C-alpha cells in the first residue's frame, strides 16, 4: 500500500513530512498538554493561517516567490507566539485571555488577506484541511530543519522543561530561568504548528498535538512513557491518514483526527476494563 509513497517524489515529500510531524507534534504536545496550554495550539494555528493567506496574497498579487506560504505561516506563527507571551504577562491574572485575542486576530487577518487575494482557492483549502499532494521538496527541507531544531532543543532542555511543567514554583525557587525556558517552548510550539499544517491543516493541527497525548496519558506510567505512546499514536494516525487520503482522494487531516479519536476511546475503555478487573481481584 505504501509503494506509491516511495515511487513518486511528491508522495515521498508527504510521507517524510508526515513521519516527522508524527514525531515532533506529539513530542512537544506532551509538554503542551501537561502545562494546560492545549488551546495555545489552536490560537497559533489561526495566526499561521493569516501568514499563509499573506504568502498566497503576495504570490498571487505581486508574484513574490521567495516568501512561500509555508515560510510566511511559520513567521506569523512565531510572532504570534511572542505576542501571546506579551499578552500573558500584561494580563497576569487572566492569562487565558491571550488565546481568544490572538485567535481572533489570526482569523481577522486571514479574512483580509484572503479577500485581497481574490477569494478562496484550492491551495487555501489544502492548508485548511491538509493535503497528500501539497508538500514541495522545499517545504520538506524547511520541515526537516524545524524537526531538527525541536528535537535538539527539547533534548537539551528536557529536564528544565519537565521541572517547569510539573512544579513551576519549585523550578523558580531552584533558580531555573522559567521565563526564558517558557519562551523557547512557545516558539518551538509555533514552529511545530507551522510544520504540521501542510499535512493535517490549520483547523486540525492542534488535534495532532493534543489527542495522542490525551490517549497516552490514560495508560502511560511516567512522563517519558507518555511521550513514547503519544508518538506511537501520532505516527499510526499519520500513516493511516496519508494512505487513506491518497487512495480515497480526501484530505488526510480528517482521517488522522478520527484515528486519534478512536485511539483515545480505546485507551479510555481499556483503562476502565483494567481498573474493573483490578477492583474485582481485590474483592
Amino acid at each position, binding site marked *: 500500500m505504501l509503494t506509491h509513497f516511495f515511487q513518486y517524489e511528491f508522495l515521498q515529500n508527504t510521507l517524510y513530512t508526515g513521519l516527522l510531524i508524527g514525531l515532533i507534534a506529539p513530542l512537544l504536545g506532551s509538554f503542551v498538554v*501537561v502545562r*494546560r496550554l492545549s488551546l495555545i495550539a489552536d490560537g497559533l494555528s489561526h495566526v499561521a493561517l493569516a501568514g499563509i493567506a499573506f504568502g498566497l496574497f503576495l504570490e498571487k498579487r505581486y508574484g513574490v516567490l521567495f516568501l512561500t506560504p509555508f515560510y510566511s505561516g511559520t513567521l506569523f506563527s512565531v510572532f504570534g507566539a511572542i505576542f501571546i507571551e506579551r499578552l500573558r504577562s500584561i494580563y497576569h491574572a487572566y492569562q487565558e485571555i491571550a488565546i481568544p485575542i490572538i485567535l481572533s486576530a489570526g482569523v481577522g487577518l486571514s479574512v483580509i488577506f484572503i479577500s485581497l487575494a481574490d477569494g478562496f482557492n484550492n491551495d487555501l483549502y489544502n492548508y485548511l484541511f491538509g493535503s497528500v499532494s501539497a508538500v514541495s521538496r522545499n517545504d520538506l527541507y524547511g520541515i526537516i530543519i524545524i524537526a531538527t531544531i525541536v528535537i535538539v532543543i527539547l533534548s*537539551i*532542555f528536557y*529536564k*528544565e522543561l*519537565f*521541572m517547569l*511543567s*510539573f*512544579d513551576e*514554583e*519549585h*523550578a*523558580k*525557587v*531552584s*533558580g*531555573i530561568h522559567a521565563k526564558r525556558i517558557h519562551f523557547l517552548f512557545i516558539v518551538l510550539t509555533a514552529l511545530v504548528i507551522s510544520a504540521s499544517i501542510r499535512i493535517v491543516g490549520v483547523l486540525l493541527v492542534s488535534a495532532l498535538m493534543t489527542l495522542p497525548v490525551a490517549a*497516552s*496519558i490514560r495508560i*502511560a*506510567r*511516567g*512522563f*517519558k*512513557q*507518555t511521550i513514547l505512546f503519544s508518538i506511537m499514536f501520532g505516527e499510526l494516525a499519520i500513516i493511516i491518514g496519508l494512505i487513506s487520503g491518497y487512495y480515497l482522494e480526501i484530505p488526510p487531516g480528517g482521517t488522522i483526527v478520527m484515528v486519534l479519536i478512536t485511539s483515545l476511546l480505546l485507551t479510555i475503555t481499556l483503562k476502565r476494563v483494567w481498573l474493573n478487573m483490578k477492583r474485582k481481584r481485590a474483592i
Partner: protein
Amino acid sequence: MNKSIVQMKNIKYAYEDKMALNNINLTIPTGSFLGLVGPNGGGKTTLIKLILGLIKPQQGQISLFGQDITEFNDWNKIGFVSQKANSFNRGFPATVKEVVSTGLTAQVGYFKFFNQGHRQKIIEAVDLVGMSDYLNQNIGDLSGGQQQRIFIARALVSDPKFLILDEPTVGIDTENVQKFYQLLHKLNSEQNISLLLVSHDVGTMTKYANGVACLNKSIHFHGNTSDFTNLTEHQLSQFYGHDLNIVTHQH
C-alpha cells in the same frame, strides 16, 4: 559554639504600604529543628522567601552559612518543601523517580544530562523517606502522606544541609502526620540536617522540634520547646492576636 545556618539582623520588609516583618533578629544554629509558628498573615512565608533569596529585605542583613546572602550562591545546601507542593496537578503523568529527579535539575545545570551517579542519588533519596517500593509509580496514584514524603525526597536529593518546610502537613491525615514528623526527626538526628518547619500544628510540632520561634510581624518568642509549652495562654494569645489553645495528640 555552634555555627549558625541563618542569621537575620534587624530585618524589615513591607509589601507596598503594609509592614510584613519588623525588626527581625533570628539565628538558626547548625543542627537545630526549629518550629516557626504564628497567625496567618504574620509573615512566616515572607520570612522563608527572604531566607531563600526570592525577595530582598528593605532593611537589615541576612547571612547563610556564615556568608552574606548577596554573595551566597551555594543554594544546593538549602532544600525547600513548599505548602503548595501537595496542590500539584494529580493527573500529571510523572513517576516518583521523575519527580525526585527535578530536585537535581538546578544542581546538574543547563546543557548537561543526568548520569549514573545522579540516578543512584535519586534511588537513595527515595529510600531515605521509605518509599523505594514506589519508584516507578505515578505520583498521582499515591496517598497525600506518601506524596509529601516524595516531595521531601525531592528536597533531599541534592544533599541539603538545611531543609525548610512551609506547612507541609496541610491535608494529611493524623496518622500520616505522626509518621511525617518521625521522618523529620530522623533526618535531623541521624542525617544531621537542620530543619525549619512552619506549622499550625503547634501541639505535634513541639513534641519533635527542639526550638520554637513565634512570629507575628516580629519575633515574639524564640527559645526551646519546653519554655514555649510553659507559656501561659494569655501570653500565647497576645502573640497570636487571638485566643489560642495548644492541643497535644495522645497516641
